[in-house]
C-alpha cells in the first residue's frame, strides 16, 4: 500500500480516537453537571439521600407532572414523591420494582395517579417511551427496555443510555444559565404559576390545548394498562396497599372533558375500564381518592389547567394526609433503622473523586494526543517541504 494511504489511515484512526476521548470527557461533564440539574435526576439524588436515612417509605406517590407538583411530602409524614414529568406506568412499574427488589426499601402504600390523561397513548408514544433512559438503564436491563422500545436497536439504546451527551449539546447552556432551579422537597417540585392571573379566554385556550394534546387522535394505551396491572400485581405480591388518586383540574378542563368525552368515550366509561382492571388484580382491596373537583372554583390554587401550584400543593397534601390516615390501611412495614448512612455518604464521595480524576486524566490525555497529532502533521509538512527543496539541487 502506498505510503500516503497508510499515513491517511493512521490520521483517521487518530482522529477517531480523539473524537472518542472528547465525547467521553464531555459525557462525564454532561452527566455530572448538566444531568444533575434536570428535575428527574434531582429527584433521583433526593431519593438516594432519602434512602440513605430511611429504610422505609410509608407512602410512595407515583405519577406524572400532576403528582410531581401536587404532593408535598412535608405535609405527609413518611411520604416520598416519585412523580416525574410525562411518566407512564411502564416507568412506574420499573421504579417500584427497583425500590422494592434492588434497594430493599419497605413500602407501606403506593399512591397511583388515575387522572383522565394518565393512560393516554400520548404518554407511551415514542418521545416519552423510556426517554430518561440514562437514569432507568441504571436499574432496568437494556433488554427489558428493548421490549418496549422495539424500533430501536440494542446499540442505539446502549449509546442513548451510556452516552447521553450525544445530541444534547444545546443543554450545555444550562451551565452558564443564571436561572435558579425550582425548589424541591422529597421529590416535590414547587410550581410558582397562578392560573387565576390569566384571563378567561387564556384559561379556556390552555384547557383546549391540554385536551388536544392528550385526547385528540389518542387512545387508552394498552401498554399503560398492561404495566398498571403489573404494578398492582407487584404491590399485591409485596403486601403493599394501593390507593388511586384523581388530582384537581380547572373548571374549564372539567367542562371540556365532560362535554366532549375522552378517548371517544365518556369519563364514566373510562373510569369503569380503569377500576375493572384494578379489581381484577386487587379485588376490593384498594381505595380511590377523588380530588378532581377540589379547586374547580379556586384557580388561584392551580398552576394551569391540570397542575396544582405550590399553594394548592399544600392544601391538597394536607387533605390527602388527613384522608389517608382515616383509611384503615394495614401496616406491613417494619420500623427497622439502617445504620449505614455514613458508609453510603463515603461511597458517594469516593465515586465523585474518581470521576474528577477521570475527567482530569482524560483531558490531559486528549491534549497530549492533540499535541502529538499537530506535531506529526507539522513534521510531515516540514519533511515534505525539505524534500521539495532538496530535489532541484540534486
Amino acid at each position, binding site marked *: 500500500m502506498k505510503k500516503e494511504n497508510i*499515513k*491517511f489511515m493512521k490520521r483517521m484512526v487518530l*482522529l477517531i480516537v480523539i*473524537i472518542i476521548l472528547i*465525547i467521553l470527557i464531555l459525557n462525564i461533564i454532561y452527566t455530572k453537571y448538566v444531568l444533575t440539574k434536570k428535575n428527574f435526576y434531582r429527584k433521583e439524588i433526593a431519593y438516594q439521600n432519602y434512602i440513605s436515612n430511611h429504610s422505609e417509605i410509608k407512602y410512595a406517590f407515583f405519577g406524572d407532572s400532576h403528582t410531581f407538583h401536587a404532593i408535598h411530602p412535608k405535609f405527609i409524614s413518611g411520604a416520598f414523591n416519585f412523580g416525574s414529568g410525562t411518566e407512564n406506568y411502564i416507568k412506574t412499574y420499573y421504579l417500584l420494582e427497583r425500590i422494592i427488589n434492588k434497594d430493599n426499601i419497605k413500602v407501606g402504600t403506593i399512591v397511583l395517579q388515575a387522572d383522565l390523561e394518565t393512560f393516554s397513548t400520548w404518554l407511551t408514544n415514542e418521545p416519552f417511551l423510556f426517554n430518561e433512559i440514562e437514569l432507568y438503564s441504571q436499574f432496568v436491563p437494556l433488554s427489558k427496555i428493548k421490549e418496549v422500545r422495539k424500533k430501536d436497536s440494542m446499540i*442505539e439504546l446502549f449509546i442513548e443510555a451510556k452516552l447521553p451527551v450525544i*445530541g444534547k*449539546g444545546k443543554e450545555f447552556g444550562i451551565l452558564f444559565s443564571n436561572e435558579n432551579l425550582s425548589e424541591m422537597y422529597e421529590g416535590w417540585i414547587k410550581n410558582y404559576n397562578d392560573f387565576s392571573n390569566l384571563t378567561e379566554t387564556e384559561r379556556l385556550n390552555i384547557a383546549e390545548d391540554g385536551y388536544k394534546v392528550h385526547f385528540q387522535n389518542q387512545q387508552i394505551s394498552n401498554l399503560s394498562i398492561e404495566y398498571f396491572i403489573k404494578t398492582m400485581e407487584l404491590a399485591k405480591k409485596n403486601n403493599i396497599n394501593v390507593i388511586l388518586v384523581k388530582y384537581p383540574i380547572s373548571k374549564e378542563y372539567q367542562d371540556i372533558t365532560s362535554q366532549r368525552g375522552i378517548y371517544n368515550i365518556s369519563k364514566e366509561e373510562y373510569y369503569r375500564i380503569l377500576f375493572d382492571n384494578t379489581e381484577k388484580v386487587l379485588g376490593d382491596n384498594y381505595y380511590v381518592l377523588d380530588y378532581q373537583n377540589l379547586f374547580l372554583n379556586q384557580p388561584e390554587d392551580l398552576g394551569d389547567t391540570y397542575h396544582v401550584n405550590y399553594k394548592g400543593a399544600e392544601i391538597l397534601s394536607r387533605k390527602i394526609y388527613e384522608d389517608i390516615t382515616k383509611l384503615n390501611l394495614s401496616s406491613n412495614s417494619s420500623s427497622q433503622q439502617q445504620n449505614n448512612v455514613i458508609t453510603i455518604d463515603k461511597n458517594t464521595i469516593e465515586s465523585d473523586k474518581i470521576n474528577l480524576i477521570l475527567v482530569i486524566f482524560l483531558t490531559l490525555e486528549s491534549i497530549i494526543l492533540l499535541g502529538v497529532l499537530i506535531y506529526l502533521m*507539522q513534521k510531515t509538512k516540514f519533511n515534505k517541504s525539505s524534500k521539495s527543496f532538496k530535489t532541484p539541487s540534486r
Partner: protein
Amino acid sequence: MLFNSIEFLIFFPVVVLTYFLLPHKFRWFWLLSASVYFYMRFIPIYILVLFFLIAIDYTAGLMISAAKTASRKKLFLIMSLCANIGILSFFKYFNFFNLNIDKLATLIGWNYPLVLLSFALPIGLSFHTFQSISYVIEVYKGNYKVEKNGGIYALYVMFFPQLVAGPIERPQNLLHQLHEKHDFDFQRVSNGLKLMLWGFFKKVVIADRLALLVNTIYANPTNYTGTPLILATVFFAFQIYCDFSGYSDIAIGSARVMGINLMYNFRRPYFSKSISEFWRRWHISLSTWFRDYFYIPLGGSRVSLLRVYFNLFVTFLVSGLWHGANWTFAVWGAFHGFYIMFGKATYKFRKKLADSYGLSKFPKLHTILQIIITFILADIAWIFFRANTMSDAVYILTHLLSGLTLNLSSVDLGLDNPELVVAFVSIIFMESVQFVQERIGIMQFLSRKPAWLRWIIYLLLILGILLFGVFKGMSFIYFQF
C-alpha cells in the same frame, strides 16, 4: 437502511473495507449483495418488485440491441416503458386515480365501486424506475451499448448509495464505472468522507431539527396565524434542501469512497437569481431527466412560443405528480411551470424595469434582490409541497401575513428556545459555507489553510454532528417518492 442510522455506520465501513480487500472480479457481486441487503432492511418483500423491473429492463435492453428493424426496437422500448410506468402507476397512483374517479362519480350521481389498495409504496420506486427507463431509452437511441452482464446491470439499478433517492443516474455515467477497477486512493476517500460528513451535518443537525418545528405547525396549521406559519414555511425550504441535498451528499460521498463518481444533484439552489436557474441547481438529475426524456420529446423549445409554454407547463405538472400522488404536488409543479412561463414572457419587460429603476447600475443589489424574490417564489410553492391537504395549503397561504408578532413565547412551535438558536446558527453556518463554495469553492478555501487547522475544522464538524444532531432516526423526505 437509513444513512442516518447506527446500522449504516457499521454497514458502510464493512462494505468499503471488504470491497477494497476483494479481487476486482468479485467486487461487483459484493456491492450487489450489499445493495440487496441495504434495500431489504426497509420492506424485504419489495425486493421482488425491484428484481422484476431489473429483469424486464435487462431483457428489453438485450432485445432492443438484437432487434433487426426499427419497428421491433420501438416495440421492445414501448413494452419496457409500459412495464415500468405500469408498475409505478399501480403502486403510486392507483388509489389516487380511483379516489378522483370516485369524487367525479359522486358529482354526476354514479355509484362507482371504489376499490382501494392498502400497501406501502416500495421505497425509492420513482427513482429506480426512472433510472431503468433512462437505460432502455439510451440503448434504444444507440447512445449506449447494451449491458450484457446481468449482475452489473442489476448493480446499476441497485447501487446502494443512490438506490432509494438518487441521483437518478444515466448509463453513460455509471455503468462503465461499475466495470472499472478502483484502487484505494486516500485523496478520493478523504474527499468522499468529507462530503458524507457535510451531508450528515445538513441532515441531522439542520433538516431533522427544523422538521420538529415544521411538522408541529403543518400538522395543525389552522391553530396558527402569521409568524409561526412564515417561520415553518421558511424552515421547510431549508429542511427539504438540507434533507435531500444531505442525502445526495452522503450518496455521492459514499460512492466516491469506493471510486465511483455520481452526478451532482444540487448546486446551492437558494442562490438562484430566477426560477429557471433554480431548476438548473435543484435536483439536477431529475430536472435533466425530464428535460431529456419528456420535455425535448414533446418538442422542447423548437416549436411555436405557445407550444413551448404548453410543453414547459406540462413538464412541471408531471414532475410535480412524480413526487407524489396528491393534488398538492401537482399544484406545486404547476406553480413552477407558471413561474417559468411568466419569467420567459416578462423577461424583456423586467429588464427594462430594472434599468428604469437604475438597478442595473448596482449589480450586487440587483442580484441580492433577485435571489430574495426567487427564494420567496420557491418558498410559496413549497407550501403546497408540504401541506397535507389543499385546504391546509390555502389556509397557510392566506394567513401568512395575518397576526404577525415577534412574541412567540406562548405558541407551541415544537422547538424550545435553545433549539431555535441552534437551528438559526446552523442555517447561517451552512449558508456561509455555501457562499464560500459559490465564490471560490470550499475545498480550495480549505486547502489554503494549514493542515492542523483543517483537521480541527473536521473535528469540530464531527463533534457538532454528535452533540447537536437530532438522532431520532427520521427518514429522508424523498424516500416516500
